[in-house]
């Protein structure tokens, strides 16, 4: 082995400054977070709500959160794994599902705050830019979009969720520049294209082309759709039904969870401070009694 001089010696570690934990984990962009959370000091404790959207490989998380020193407080949350309750079982991470999740969260929050009658939002999803009109009695619920670390390109699913929340009746400052269907050259949003994406039209079109050209790939790729009898033409009516079901009952249903099973312990359990002290006293007593026993009995040598 060639002798390689150690690169990171003691001095390196002594001087190393770790980044914040969530930065080390690569989960939080603090530059953006500071700007989202900072509330005017002359507004004192008025909360500033964030509309948080995050995507995992199989799920979409949408939350309304406000920050506090002890930790962020989640006002309401919606997950795309709740959508089977409203009739959508497949494609839970696509643009249309993001729209449904955003819509579900918005209706849920408004219902929680008893504002759902006043702010119906956009019942017929048309794809064009819709902003809530302030009603007479209360001002609309305002939240700021928090995308996290997502690259905000035109047509990203994050903006699908944003559109769902806007149509649900939330007041979120936005621009139509990043919705699916925005033409960079003409600099305007084509509502038809956006509407197609909201109702899964892009998925349906792909299904159609695969069905004609490559039937085997169609069978393997859309197996779950086929299993549930969903064809390319049935996608749009399905999403219409899901939207209606969401508007009808957005409340959370608590799921019954059994207490977790007891597992066999393979490693030793860590002792508490009292247990360790007691063990030491017992050991010293045993030593003293073995060594003769004529000396002191009290072994409280702390």
């Amino acid at each position, binding site marked *: 082995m060639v002798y390689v001089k150690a690169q990171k010696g003691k001095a390196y570690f002594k*001087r190393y400054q770790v*980044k914040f934990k969530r930065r080390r984990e690569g989960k939080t962009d603090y530059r953006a977070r500071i700007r989202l*959370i*900072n509330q005017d*000091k*002359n507004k*004192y*404790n008025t909360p500033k709500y964030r509309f948080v959207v995050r995507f995992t490989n199989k799920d979409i998380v949408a939350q309304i959160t406000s*920050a*506090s020193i002890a930790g962020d407080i989640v006002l309401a949350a919606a997950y795309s794994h709740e959508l089977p309750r409203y009739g959508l079982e497949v494609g839970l991470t696509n643009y249309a599902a993001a729209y449904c999740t955003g819509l579900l969260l918005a209706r849920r929050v408004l219902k929680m705050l008893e504002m759902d009658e006043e702010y119906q939002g956009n019942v017929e999803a048309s794809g064009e830019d819709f902003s809530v009109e302030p009603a007479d009695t209360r001002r609309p619920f305002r939240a700021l979009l928090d995308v996290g670390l997502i690259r905000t390109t035109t047509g990203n699913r994050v903006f699908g969720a944003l559109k769902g929340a806007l149509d649900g009746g939330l007041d979120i400052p936005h621009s139509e520049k990043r919705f699916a269907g925005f033409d960079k050259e003409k600099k305007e949003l084509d509502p038809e294209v956006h509407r197609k994406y909201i109702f899964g039209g892009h998925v349906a079109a792909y299904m159609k082309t695969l069905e004609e050209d490559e039937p085997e790939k169609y069978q393997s790729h859309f197996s779950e759709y086929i299993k549930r009898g969903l064809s390319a033409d049935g996608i749009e009516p399905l999403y219409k039904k899901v939207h209606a079901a969401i508007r009808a009952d957005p409340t959370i249903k608590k799921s019954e969870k059994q207490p977790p099973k007891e597992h066999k312990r393979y490693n030793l359990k860590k002792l508490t401070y009292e247990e360790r002290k007691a063990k030491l006293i017992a050991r010293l007593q045993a030593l003293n009694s073995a060594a003769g026993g004529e000396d002191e009995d009290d072994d409280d040598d702390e």
Partner: protein
Amino acid sequence: MPAGHGLRSRTRDSFSRPFRKKGTIALTTYLRTYHIGDYVDIKVNGAVHKGMPHKFYHGRTGRVWNITKRAIGVEVNKQVGNRIIRKRIHVRVEHVMPSRCMEEFRLRKINNDKLKTEAKANGQQISTKRQPEGPKPGFMVEAATLETVTPIPYDVVNDLKGGY
């Protein structure tokens, strides 16, 4: 070259960020709320260049008199010549932290009120005044033997070894 007396002169160390605490500022500085009349400590955060107080105010404590969108108005005492002026400055929240100077007093007030209500319920008279620490109580020294030491009378002849 003469010494400069600029705004931030002689602040090389006091305005620099502490060892291994550079970079992103922790969010609690932005989440804290202040009310008029609170006591605050001014401690300059060299990473934020806006709304910095002058170096004189670094380490001073004052009361809040105004609150704006991103800054706080603090009233600090400054000795100018033969008098003390109450100076009103505006400082961004990053350079301010809540002062604990009144904490002990506040807690003592609450505790005293509790003691007084208890004493009133029992019909006793108590004094909640703080007493200074008195002299230590006496104690016996164990295993001590007494040895009386007296000086020996001065012997001139023997002590002047040679040479007189």
